[in-house]
C-alpha cells in the first residue's frame, strides 16, 4: 500500500499540468474542466484516505507520510474539491488556469503537510502562494504584483528564519532539529529566527494587524482567487506553523509567548473587524483571521491536545475559508448583493450561511467543535486569559455572521434590473448545486461525526512527536 501513498500528490499535480495545457490549447471555456478537476481531487482524496494510513518516508526523509500528513492532505483535498465544485465558473476569468491553480495550491499545501525538512516546507508554501498570485493576476495585475511583493517579504522572513534555525541546529531535517533543540534548550540565537519565522507566517496567513496586503487582495481577486488567498495559502502557512511548533515543543519559551499575543490579537481583532465591515468578502476574510487566531492559540499550548485541537480546527478552517468566497461568487460589493439569496439560490445561500457561521464558531457547526477542542486545550494549559479573549472574539464574530445570514434570508432579493455589476447572481449549474449541498453536509457533519476526525488529528499530533 505504501506504493500508493504518493499517488494523490501525483494525480493532483499531473491534472493541474494537463488542464493548464488543455486550457492553453483551447481557450474556449470547457464545461468538463471543473467537473474533471473535482473528480480528480475526489479520487485523490479517496486514495489518500485508503492508502495514506501507511507510515512511510521517501526521498531520504524529505517526504514523510504519517497521520499528520494524512489529516492535513485530506483536509486540503476536500477543501479543493468543494471549492472547485461550488465556484461559479462563468465569473472566473480563465477557468482552465483557475482550476489548475487551485490544484497547484492544493499540491503546495500537500507538500508542506508531508515535508520532512525545511526545503519541503518552504517550497510547498511558496508553490501555494505563487498559484494564488497567478490567479489574482488574472483579474487585477496590480493586486497580483502587490501579493507577490508582500509574499516575497513574508517568504524572505520565513526563509531567513529557517536558515538561522538551520545554522543554530546544524540540520534542516525536522526530526534532527527537534533533537538538537531539546539538547541545547532555548537560546537567544534561536529566539530571533523563530520570531522572524513566525512573523513571516503571520503575514502569509494574513493575521491582524498584518492583513494590510491580504485583505485588499482578497477583495479585488476573483472569487476563487480570494478563496486561495484566504484559504489554501493560509492553510499551507498554518501547516508549516504546526510543524515548526511541534519541532520546537521542547522549548516553548521560544515561541509560545509570541503565539499567544498573535492569537489574542487575531481572535479579538478579527471578530471586531468582521463586526465593523459591511462587505461580505471582507467580513469573511476577518472571520477567517479570527479563526486562524484560534488555531494559533492551540499551537501556543505546545501540548498534544492543543495541537490536535488546532489540527481539528484547521480542517474546518480549510473547508470554510477556501470555499467561502467561491460559494459567494460575485456578490462582493456589499451586503445587498447577498440579499434574498435564500429565496433564489437556496443551496448556495445555505452554503454561505454555514460557512460564515462556521468561521464565526457558532454551534453546532465545524468551527464550533474545533474552537471548543482548542478551548479545552487552553483550559488544560491554564491559559484562561487567552480563552476569555477568544470567546469575546467569537461572540463578535457570531454577531457579524448573523448580519450576513440576515441578508441572505431576511431581506428581499433586489429587482434583477437594479442589480449592480458586482451583485450578479451566481449561475446555477448542476455541479455548483451539488457542491453547495455537499459543502453544507460536510460543515454540518464535521463536528457531529467528529470522533474519527479528532482521533485522526490526535494521531497527527502524536506523529509529530508530541505527548
Amino acid at each position: 500500500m505504501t506504493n500508493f501513498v504518493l499517488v494523490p500528490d501525483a494525480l493532483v499535480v499531473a491534472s493541474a499540468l494537463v488542464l493548464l495545457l488543455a486550457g492553453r490549447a483551447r481557450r474556449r471555456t470547457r464545461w468538463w474542466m471543473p467537473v474533471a478537476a473535482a473528480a480528480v481531487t475526489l479520487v485523490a482524496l479517496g486514495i489518500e484516505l485508503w492508502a495514506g494510513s501507511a507510515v512511510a518516508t521517501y526521498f531520504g526523509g524529505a517526504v514523510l507520510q504519517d497521520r499528520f500528513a494524512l489529516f492535513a492532505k485530506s483536509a486540503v483535498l476536500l477543501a479543493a474539491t468543494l471549492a472547485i465544485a461550488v465556484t461559479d465558473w462563468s465569473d472566473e476569468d480563465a477557468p482552465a488556469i483557475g482550476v489548475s491553480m487551485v490544484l497547484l495550491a492544493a499540491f503546495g499545501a500537500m507538500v508542506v503537510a508531508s515535508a520532512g525538512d525545511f526545503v519541503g516546507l518552504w517550497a510547498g508554501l511558496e508553490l501555494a502562494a505563487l498559484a494564488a498570485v497567478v490567479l489574482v493576476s488574472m483579474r487585477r495585475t496590480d493586486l497580483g504584483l502587490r501579493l507577490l511583493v508582500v509574499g516575497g517579504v513574508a517568504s524572505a522572513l520565513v526563509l531567513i528564519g529557517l536558515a538561522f534555525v538551520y545554522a543554530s541546529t546544524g540540520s534542516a531535517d525536522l526530526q534532527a532539529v527537534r533533537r538538537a533543540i531539546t539538547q541545547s534548550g532555548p537560546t537567544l540565537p534561536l529566539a530571533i529566527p523563530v520570531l522572524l519565522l513566525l512573523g513571516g507566517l503571520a503575514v502569509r496567513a494574513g493575521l491582524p494587524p498584518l492583513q494590510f496586503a491580504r485583505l485588499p487582495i482578497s477583495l479585488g481577486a476573483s472569487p476563487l482567487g480570494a478563496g486561495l488567498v484566504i484559504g489554501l495559502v493560509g492553510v499551507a502557512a498554518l501547516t508549516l506553523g504546526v510543524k515548526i511548533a511541534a519541532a520546537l515543543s521542547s522549548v516553548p519559551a521560544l515561541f509560545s509567548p509570541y503565539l499567544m499575543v498573535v492569537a489574542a490579537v487575531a481572535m479579538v481583532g478579527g471578530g471586531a473587524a468582521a463586526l465593523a465591515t459591511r462587505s461580505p468578502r471582507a467580513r469573511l476574510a476577518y472571520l477567517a483571521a479570527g479563526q486562524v487566531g484560534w488555531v494559533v492559540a492551540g499551537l501556543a499550548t505546545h501540548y498534544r491536545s492543543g495541537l490536535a485541537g488546532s489540527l481539528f480546527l484547521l480542517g474546518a478552517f480549510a473547508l470554510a475559508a477556501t470555499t467561502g468566497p467561491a460559494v459567494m461568487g460575485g456578490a462582493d460589493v456589499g451586503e445587498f448583493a447577498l440579499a434574498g439569496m435564500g429565496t433564489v439560490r437556496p443551496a448556495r445561500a445555505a452554503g454561505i450561511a454555514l460557512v460564515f457561521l462556521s468561521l464565526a464558531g457558532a454551534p453546532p457547526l465545524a468551527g464550533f467543535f474545533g474552537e471548543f477542542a482548542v478551548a479545552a486545550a487552553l483550559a488544560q494549559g491554564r491559559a484562561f486569559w487567552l480563552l476569555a479573549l477568544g470567546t469575546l472574539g467569537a461572540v463578535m464574530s457570531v454577531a457579524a455572521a448573523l448580519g450576513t445570514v440576515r441578508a441572505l434570508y431576511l431581506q428581499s432579493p433586489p429587482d434583477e434590473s437594479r442589480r449592480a455589476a458586482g451583485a450578479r447572481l451566481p449561475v446555477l449549474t448542476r455541479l455548483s448545486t451539488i457542491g453547495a449541498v455537499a459543502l453544507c453536509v460536510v460543515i454540518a457533519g464535521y463536528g457531529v461525526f467528529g470522533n474519527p476526525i479528532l482521533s485522526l488529528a490526535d494521531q497527527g499530533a502524536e506523529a509529530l512527536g508530541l505527548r
Partner: protein
Amino acid sequence: MILAGIANATPTPVGVPGANIFTSSLILSLSIWVPAAVAIAMNAIPNPRGRYDTLMKQIAFFTNLGILFVLFIAYNQFQTFLPTIQYEEKLPWLPSIGATYHLGVDGTGMTMLMLSGIVGVTSVLASWGVRERVRSYFSLLLLTQSAVNGAIAAHDMFVLMLFWGAAVVPVALLVLGWGGPRREAAAWRLVGYWGIGTAALLVAIMTAYAASGGSSFDMDVLLKATLSPRVQLAVGVPLVIAAATRLPLFPLHGWVRDVYSEAPLGVSVVIAGSASRLGAYLLLRTFVGADPDAARLLSPLIAALAVLTIGYAAVVALRSRDLRWAAAHLAMVPGAITVFGLAALTPLSIAGSAFSIFTGGLAAALIIAGVWTLTDRAQTRSLQLLSGLAPRMPILTWVLIVGALALLGVPLLASFPAEAMILFGSFKTQPIGAFAVAAGLVLTAVALAALVHRVLFGQPNHDAPAVSDASLGETWYLGVLAGVLLWVGLFPGGPKLPGTDQTIFDPGLVNVLSAGITDIASPYVPPAPPAATQ
C-alpha cells in the same frame, strides 16, 4: 403537606395508570432532533409565493404538539421515587477531549421539558398571524425549540454549551427578521448580552474541566468533582453572569425592554417562557447543586441582585409610559424570585425555586402574551391612550388579571406554592432579603394594580384608536398558558381518584419535581439536633 413533600421526597413508587404504554430509549433525543429535522425538511419543501404557508404553520404546530405528547408520556412515566437522572442516553462523541453525547433529566429537568413543550405549542399558536417568510419563521422557531430542549436535557457540559450557544442564533434571526421598528437594536442587544453569557458559561465550564483533571465534560464527573472553594468561586462567578444575562437579572438586563417589546409575539413567548428560564435552571443544576462553598459565599450577592431586580422592575413599570415596556420589566420578576430562592440555600427554598422555574416561565409568558395581544388589538402601546378597555375587551381583561395574579403568586395559581416555598424557606437564612423580596412584591403589586386600573378599569379614552377583543385563535394560546397555571395551582400533586392517593393521569408536578431536588439540596440540609439525653 404537599409543599414539604417536595423538599423531602419519599422513596416510594407511585403507580400511575397508563405507565409503560410507550417507552423509548431515545425520548430525549426525539424531543431535540425531531424539531430540528422538521425545520430542515420544511426548508426543502418548495413554497412558491407563499403557496403553502398554511401547511408550514400546520407542520410546525403538529410537530410541537407531537413533541408535547411525547414529553407528556415521559412526564407521566417519570419514576418520581428515583433521585437519579432518567431517560438517560450516553454515547461517546469526542472521547479525546472527554465530550459525550449524554442526555438525561431529573425531576426539575422533566418539568422544564414540559414547560418547553407547552410554550412551544403556545408560541406556534401565537405566531399564526405571521404572513412574511412563513417557512423561515417557523423553521427558526422549531430550531429554537430544539436548542432549548437540548440545553435542558444535556447531562454533559459540552452538550449544554452546544445547545445554550445554539439558541442565540435562531432567536436573534427571528427578532431581526420579524420584529418591530426597533428590531435591529433589539436583536443586537440580545446577541450581545446572550453572547457574553455564553462566553461566561464557556469560561466556567473550562475552569471546572481544568480543575477536575481535564478528562471529561460529563456532569457526573464535572459537577461531582471536589473543588477547592477558590476554584468553586472561579467557576461560580461566570455561571452567575451566564444565568444573569439569560434570565435576566439587574444589571445585565439590557436586552429585556427592546426584545420583549419588539420581537414578534411567538418569539417573545418562547423567550419569556422557556429560553430565559434556562438561566435559573443553569444555576440550579450546575451552581447550587455542584459548588456549595461558592454558593454560600456568593449567596448574599445573588440575593441582592434578585432583590434589586424585583425593585427595579417594579419601579420601571410604575414609571413607564409604554405598556409593552412595563410588561417586559414585570416579566423579570418571576426569574428574580426563582434566583432568590436559590440564593437562600435551604432545601425548601431550592425546591420552591425549581417549582418557580416552571410557574415563572408560564407567568412571564402569559403577561407578555396578554399585553402584546392587548396592544395589538388596541393599536397602541401608549399608556396615555390606553384606558378603560375592560368593557370592550372582556377576554383580555381576564387574561391580564390572571397574569398579574400569577406574577404576584396568588393562591389557586401555580405560582403561589412556588413563591410561598421560596419565602418560607428563605426567612431563616436570608431574613433581610426575604423581607426585601416581599416589599418588592408589594411594589410590583402596586405597579400591576396601577396598570390594570388604568388600562382596564379607568375612564375610557375616546381619542384612542378603535379596539377589539382577543380572537378565538388568540384566546387559545392565552387560554393554554392561563389554564396550565390554574391546573397546576389547583392540582399540584395531580388530580386524585376520590378517597384514594391514586393520581388519575397527571402524576402531579410536585411529585415529578421532587425527584432530584433532595440530591441537589443535600449540602444545605441543616444538621439534625442532637438527641435529647435522659
